[in-house]
């Protein structure tokens, strides 16, 4: 709830003054509006449409839309993505009519290769393709490259020791410098791809000439203009999965990714006394980052009991030595604070009137049903139950996908000319993403495959498979819910409504359920609730979202 005092990252941000509901408040130029509001002592700044419930940051990386706010008259702006400018007028109640945001100058371009996403996979794909002599356009929705893993502080923070915010900063800085310095790579930040489709040259007379259009097989519609490309490398990454529990929509419940983004990218503490819970090794860097930021942690709770799983897979840890080292480092940080990961435990409820005041921590049985509980006083919690890939662009381009995008040994999807790399094809961390990105970039450029990258991918892919097996999300979480627990946060649809609708109307289809209950029809379009509804009902999750990111009607009309 406060900025990190005497910040070891040595930040010297330009001060900015914003108004919040007419009151002048201090902020930092370049930080996110969400960070400014949280640092100003707010956990929530919006009320839900039907239930009047308070909402603030939840996912922290643009997937959930909980943090919507009005900025300079433009309604429904994601506070976690919007950067503060001096003089911004923030209001927590929306005007009747939204102001249209200033238009971003847009130019239509045709390129041989476009890479979407500047995380580890996208950065390496761009470098590999450019290294093979191809011209590359690298699109990224963030102001700075790096993605979630190599998240960079805002440039305007002028950090003297950014490595204190991100342990892998040296590697990240080198990588981004190579991108910036490469004459064949154009890196376009602040660019969101809101739709993708196969090129249909006949439909747009006056566009590129037919011969050229025939080669430019794919069209990406972005917030900075239309991009036609022969080859597309999708590296759109993933966001945290959160399973619901009573109170999980209270302000002060953050995804692990949100907590990390606030600390690592904004230098703001999401709480002063916190719990970290969920499953998977990602909880470790999040806990470690919170500790380094001066947050008091009351526990780090791993719902699974992974020791047995690792023991049954001797050699797997040795196949990914960097992972082992990382984990040891994080565990050491925890130990220095008198903490160790509590296995077989989870946050199964949080309590509070307008924000988190306490949490119920449960000791779980192996199937995740509750064995016993205790109450812990905290003012925030961070939860992470693995990751959900951002599949919409891949699906829009026609790529075959199940839970992840299907790719071959060259990272080629089922659609000619479309490659996928990174978390989109399976959750395996930055090293695997980088290797996949390099393979995809080389293949897209038609270059000779890199055997070393292929070997790295092989080893880390085995590691990723082991991770998925050792840290599954087990069905017992469903027993944590009570009837009123919201499953769909956007449209405020309860567990009871979903269960009763399926039974009463004999619903056997995902779309039918969605349209009967509105679960998944709201701002986040099922990004947060989709997997959970699927688990609760046994109906498949649907990731078909032809509008991949909200776009103003005026921009769509002029696109």
């Amino acid at each position: 709830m406060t900025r990190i005092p005497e910040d070891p990252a040595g930040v010297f941000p330009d001060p900015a003054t914003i108004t919040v509901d007419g009151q002048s408040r201090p902020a930092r130029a370049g930080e996110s509006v969400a960070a400014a509001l949280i640092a100003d002592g707010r956990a929530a700044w919006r009320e839900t449409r039907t239930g009047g419930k308070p909402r603030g940051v939840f996912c922290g990386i643009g997937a959930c839309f909980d943090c919507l706010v009005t900025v300079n008259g433009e309604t429904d702006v994601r506070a976690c993505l919007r950067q503060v400018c001096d003089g911004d007028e923030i209001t927590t109640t929306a005007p009747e009519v939204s102001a249209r945001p200033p238009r971003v100058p847009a130019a239509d371009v045709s390129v041989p290769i476009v890479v979407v996403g500047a995380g580890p996979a996208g950065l390496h794909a761009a470098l590999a393709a450019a290294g093979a002599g191809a011209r590359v356009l690298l699109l990224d929705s963030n102001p700075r490259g790096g993605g979630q893993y190599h998240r960079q502080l805002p440039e305007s923070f002028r950090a003297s020791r950014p490595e204190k915010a991100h342990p892998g900063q040296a590697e990240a800085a080198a990588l981004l410098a190579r991108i910036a310095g490469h004459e064949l790579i154009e890196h376009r930040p602040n660019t969101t791809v809101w739709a993708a489709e196969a090129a249909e040259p006949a439909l747009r007379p006056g566009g590129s000439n037919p011969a050229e259009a025939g080669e430019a097989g794919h069209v990406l519609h972005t917030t900075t203009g239309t991009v036609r490309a022969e080859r597309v490398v999708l590296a759109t990454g993933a966001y945290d999965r959160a399973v619901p529990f009573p109170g999980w929509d209270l302000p002060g419940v953050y995804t692990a990714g949100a907590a990390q983004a606030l600390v690592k990218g904004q230098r703001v503490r999401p709480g002063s006394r916190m719990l970290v819970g969920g499953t998977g090794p990602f909880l470790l860097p999040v806990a470690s980052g919170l500790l380094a930021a001066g947050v008091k942690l009351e526990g780090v709770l791993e719902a699974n009991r992974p020791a047995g799983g690792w023991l049954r897979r001797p050699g797997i840890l040795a196949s990914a030595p960097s992972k082992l080292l990382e984990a040891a480092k994080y565990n050491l940080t925890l130990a220095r604070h008198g903490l160790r990961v509590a296995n077989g435990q989870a946050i199964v409820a949080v309590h509070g009137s307008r924000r988190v005041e306490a949490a119920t921590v449960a000791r779980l049985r192996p199937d995740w049903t509750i064995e016993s509980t205790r109450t812990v006083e905290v003012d925030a919690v961070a939860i992470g139950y693995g990751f959900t890939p951002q599949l919409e662009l891949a699906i829009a381009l026609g790529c075959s996908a199940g839970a992840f995008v299907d790719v071959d040994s060259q990272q080629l999807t089922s659609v000619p000319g479309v490659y996928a790399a990174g978390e989109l094809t399976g959750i395996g961390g930055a090293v695997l993403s980088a290797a996949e990105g390099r393979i995809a970039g080389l293949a897209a450029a038609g270059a000779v495959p890199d055997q070393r990258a292929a070997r790295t991918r092989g080893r880390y892919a085995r590691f990723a498979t082991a991770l998925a097996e050792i840290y599954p999300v087990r069905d017992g979480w469903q027993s944590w819910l009570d009837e009123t627990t919201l499953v769909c946060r956007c449209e405020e649809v309860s567990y009871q409504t979903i269960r009763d609708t399926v039974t009463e109307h004999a619903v056997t289809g995902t779309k039918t359920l969605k349209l009967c209950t509105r679960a998944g029809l709201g701002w986040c379009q099922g990004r947060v609730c989709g997997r959970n509804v699927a688990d609760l009902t046994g109906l498949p999750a649907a990731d078909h979202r032809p509008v991949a990111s909200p776009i103003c009607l005026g921009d769509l009309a002029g696109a």
Partner: protein
Amino acid sequence: MHSDVAIIGAGIIGAATAYELARAGVSVTVIDRGALAGGTTSGGEGNLLVSDKPPGAELDLARDSLRRWRELDPGDIELEPKGGILVARSPEAAKALAELTATHREAGVDGRDLSLSELAEREPHLTRDVAGAAYYPEDSQVQPVLATAALLTAARRLGATLLTGAAVTGIEPGRAVRTASTTVHAGQIVIAAGPWSGEVAKLAGADLPIQPRRGMVLVTGAVPKLVHHKVYDASYLAAVASDDAGLQASAVVEGTPAGPILIGSTRERIGFDARIRVEALRVLAQGALGLFPSLAGVKILRAYGGFRPYAPDHLPVIGEDPHRPGLWYATGHEGAGIGLAPATGALLAALMTGGVPSVDPVPFSPARFG
């Protein structure tokens, strides 16, 4: 399995027909290859319109249907008598619109000419660049998937059976419908498979001239009540009546009880091509902004498409196949199926059980195709 009637298609038309038959004491099995309301019904806005139908057989069906929708009340289906507003953007269009309201009034439809100040009062955010407007208070809306679910649940409570996930593999008119896992023996078979009705009819050896007519809809995020009625450009009437296969677009904008604004409408005959094309979305956005310029800052959350069941003469096909006794059709409603469903179900039920139809069945008879 045995039942008196087997209905193929668990969309709004199949649901309404099942409900009417079940109410009449007939045993019914509804069969669908997917889930209930998983096809055309889920792609519709739920229009119950009289304003877009010139006096004639379809208007009679629509008025009968509207009355039935109000009486049905099968639970919460978001039935909203929001009223329709037609906007003419040129003096010629305004003249044609005034003629339409006059003929509607003669036919007993409440169609009112609106002055520009009355229009501004009803729709404050509408463009002032308007040559004429009309108001149809009877125009209404339901949430089509909720309505279908409610009707099917009501039918099941009256003894009907619902078989979902069961693709039909064979039809013997007057005898049975086969699926991969079961055979439903039924003396009467109804094909209510929307735009897929032609393909289904082939299984019975019949040639039914139903084609898909593609449509797309844009949906905004939840906003305050900015659009109060179903507002549409009077050119919509020409687009509906057109036989052109190419992309036709006319602006249709409406608010919904849940908050989002729905923006239509496109029509094109491109087969069952389910892709969402940005070019079509762009045209929809331009049309909506033409009517409501102040929506420029409103955010579009999603877009969806559907296939309307298109009959070459734009009239629904309701009745028995003249050459195949025991085989019935209820399709071809194009974009009006939600609105026309209850009257369609009631008409079929009356024809099948020897009851008295409340509208003239002749114009809808499949016999017109020879």
